């Protein structure tokens, strides 16, 4: 069954006509649930990810009676949020989630925090017991606004019918404005059952972020002046560029090309600049490349664009890029000087900032430090020559597959298909290897849980991406441990016949936990072995999909090709070497120039200190 096509959105009247009670044709009275549907439609919502329950039955009834908005039934509320996140991240739209009261809402909490940390615009609608029962420990009652306050950008409990439509409109405005994030609306059942007045979005004035500012022209001019004085410059870009929209990525490419400066990216920013371009140094940070981290350490002007100096990026804060003049452009004033003191802050949309930087760069005087820049590039090239991601794969046909080999071949063979490709990941070693080996040409194609590091993100994220892009190739690069955390979504994949390709990099360990135990805890592998795993092939088959298993090198390429060519959902269980570590690695508490390298590159690096051990 192909995905159900959406009817034309211009046909707004059908909703009201269909929902009018037959005995009251002349009155335009709508129920709260119908008002909600209409407000969602006005906000351009096409898909809701959700799971029904007692408190949201009126909303599901209104959903049933309209045909503008499609509902995707997930198998767990956490998965609904991750799917909506991936939908949002891959389309630039606001993702919408619908869950019931009590356990429905509490199950959504992890997803909401994930969206909060990674700045993903979401609106989560939760059912609530009727207002008359709030506070009486009613069945499936939870203090949802209380529980979700710290994990949302904003939340509401709608207590009056006249507040419903304005609340929905404002929620969307808040979710997408400024630094995007999740907004929750708690909907007591009497509000959705009873009548409520409708109000158009244009009739309300939303309180969007009051701190929002246009980038300051003088600050941009000062920043560009510093860039023109730079002899060892570096762009350090993040997820803010993706959030700003495709035009920000376009502008970034132009700015990087016209300056000739090197560029590195955070995990969340991958794809904003083409990974295959020679000016791109790869990702920086804990598992970033040797060249990116050393360039960060040694640069004289660091231009941070839409990135937030996360601890996974900075390593030891007092040794982070110690000699550079730091420029920080971010839409969120609270990110400025939060972790790293910067010399020039530009608050505002990063896409606008980059466009202004381009304009300023084109003005006289021109950049004159070409010789020093060339010298800088030759230092970077020397670091590059170390080839920090190199690994040795035994080429014997029956050789054990290295996880790096598996991920690199998935990337290369997916690229050979020439299809538009969206990649989600779970969390751990496979995620870092995917970040290292996948080179994205376009933004919005890389879906990963960066800030919160939520195991179980990838499978539901693949659902969301495939729903948004039915014709694209959608892959989940998974670990055997993470993927079991939301494995029930195989049911969603089966129901909607989503041709998602799930590649399980199966090393029988929670690999990153095992790696840290090896490096920091004397190889005492406490509870990190993946025991009693299911047979993933049979698991795929039991969920009406196709399962494949690879145990030796000779089968790897053919199996990946077969999986990619298959027109339905596939799980590929790739049994890989158990003891591989992900390198390079900046151990906790160490500086960028104290990276641990892999066995191929000489295994040098910092000793892990007691202080470092205390960090996460």
């Amino acid at each position, binding site marked *: 069954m192909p995905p159900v096509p959406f009817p034309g959105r211009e046909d707004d009247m059908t909703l009201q006509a269909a929902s009018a009670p037959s005995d009251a044709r002349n009155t335009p009275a709508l129920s709260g649930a119908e008002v909600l549907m209409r407000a969602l439609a006005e906000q351009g919502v096409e898909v809701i990810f959700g799971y029904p329950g007692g408190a949201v039955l009126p909303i599901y009834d209104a959903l049933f009676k309209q045909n503008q908005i499609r509902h995707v039934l997930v198998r767990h509320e956490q998965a609904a949020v991750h799917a909506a996140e991936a939908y949002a991240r891959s389309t630039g739209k606001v993702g919408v989630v619908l869950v019931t009261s009590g356990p429905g809402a509490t199950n959504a909490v992890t997803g909401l925090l994930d969206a909060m940390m990674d700045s993903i615009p979401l609106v989560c609608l939760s059912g609530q017991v009727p207002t008359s029962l709030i506070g009486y420990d009613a069945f499936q009652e939870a203090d949802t*606004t*209380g529980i979700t*306050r*710290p994990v949302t*950008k*904003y*939340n509401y*409990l709608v*207590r009056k019918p006249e507040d419903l439509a304005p609340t929905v409109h404002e929620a969307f405005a*808040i979710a997408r404005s400024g*630094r995007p994030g999740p907004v929750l609306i708690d909907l007591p059942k009497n509000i959705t059952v009873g009548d409520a007045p409708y109000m158009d979005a244009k009739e309300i004035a939303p*309180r969007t*972020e*009051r*701190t929002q500012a246009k980038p300051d022209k003088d600050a941009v001019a000062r920043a560009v002046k510093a860039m023109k004085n730079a002899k060892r410059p570096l762009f350090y870009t993040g997820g803010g560029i993706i959030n700003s929209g495709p035009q920000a990525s376009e502008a970034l490419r132009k700015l990087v090309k016209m300056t000739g400066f090197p560029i590195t990216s955070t995990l969340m920013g991958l794809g904003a600049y083409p990974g295959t371009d020679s000016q791109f140094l790869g990702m920086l940070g804990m598992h970033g490349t040797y060249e990116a981290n050393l360039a960060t350490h040694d640069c004289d002007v660091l231009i941070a664009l839409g990135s937030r100096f996360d601890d996974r990026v900075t390593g030891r804060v*007092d040794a982070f890029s110690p000699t550079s003049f730091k420029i920080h452009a971010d839409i*969120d*004033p*609270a990110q*400025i*000087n*939060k972790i790293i*003191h910067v010399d020039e802050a530009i608050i505002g949309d990063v896409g606008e900032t980059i466009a202004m930087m381009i304009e300023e760069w084109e003005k006289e005087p021109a950049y004159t430090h070409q010789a020093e820049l060339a010298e800088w590039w030759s230092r970077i090239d020397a670091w590059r020559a170390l080839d920090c991601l190199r690994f040795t794969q035994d080429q014997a046909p029956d050789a054990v597959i290295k996880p790096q080999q598996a991920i690199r071949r998935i990337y290369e063979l997916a690229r050979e298909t020439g299809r538009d490709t969206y990649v989600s990941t779970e969390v751990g070693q496979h995620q870092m290897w995917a970040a290292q080996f996948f080179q994205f040409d376009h933004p919005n194609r890389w879906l990963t849980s960066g800030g919160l590091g939520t195991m179980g993100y990838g499978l539901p994220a693949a659902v969301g991406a495939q729903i948004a892009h039915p014709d694209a190739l959608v892959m989940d690069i998974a670990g055997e441990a993470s993927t079991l955390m939301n494995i029930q979504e195989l049911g969603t994949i089966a129901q909607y016949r989503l041709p998602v390709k799930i590649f399980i990099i199966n090393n029988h360990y929670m690999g990153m936990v095992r790696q840290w135990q090896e490096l920091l805890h004397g190889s005492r592998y406490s509870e990190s072995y993946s025991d009693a795993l299911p047979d993933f092939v049979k698991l795929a088959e039991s969920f009406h999909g196709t399962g494949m298993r690879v145990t030796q090198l000779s089968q790897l390429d053919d199996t990946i090709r077969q999986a990619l060519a298959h027109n339905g959902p596939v799980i590929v269980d790739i049994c890989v070497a158990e003891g591989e570590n992900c390198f390079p690695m900046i151990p906790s508490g160490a500086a960028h120039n104290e990276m641990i390298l892999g066995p191929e590159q000489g295994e040098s690096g910092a000793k892990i200190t007691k202080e470092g051990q205390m960090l996460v």
Partner: protein
Amino acid sequence: MQQEISGSAVISLLVDNESGALARIVELFSGRGYNIQSLTVAPVDENQTTSRVNVVTTGTPSAIRQIRAQIARVVPVSRVVDLTAEGPYVAREMALVKVVSSGEPRTEALRIAQAFRARAVDTTASSFVFELTGSTEKLDSFIELMRPLGLAEVSRTGVASICRGPQTIQSI
């Protein structure tokens, strides 16, 4: 980075008077590990739609700037001012202080109260309730003096603050 010295700051904010607004502010402080020394809140406009919150907190100057920036992100917050950083300001609180004693200590308590311009708002044969308004330091020292004289109970409002001169929280 050079060492910064931790100090006290008085932050005043205007928030939309809606359910959960105060919880949002308080949870922001506890969630991010900021300290609240004192907190006052009451509606301040004629329609009761806006409340003013005054928070006394401690931290290094950069921590205080971070607190301000984080508060400013809270949707119902329309204005945040660090009065300590913006120039001269007035910060006052009120205390109700109950002293239970007789004989010489009772007379001494009344004498000190007069010196502090505290008002006795409740008097019985064995007790006084004094009402005292002033700076935090003044209230602290009054309470310390009352301690050996039969201090039985203290109720304080926390700090209300406002900037000096014609400027307002809106115009700073």
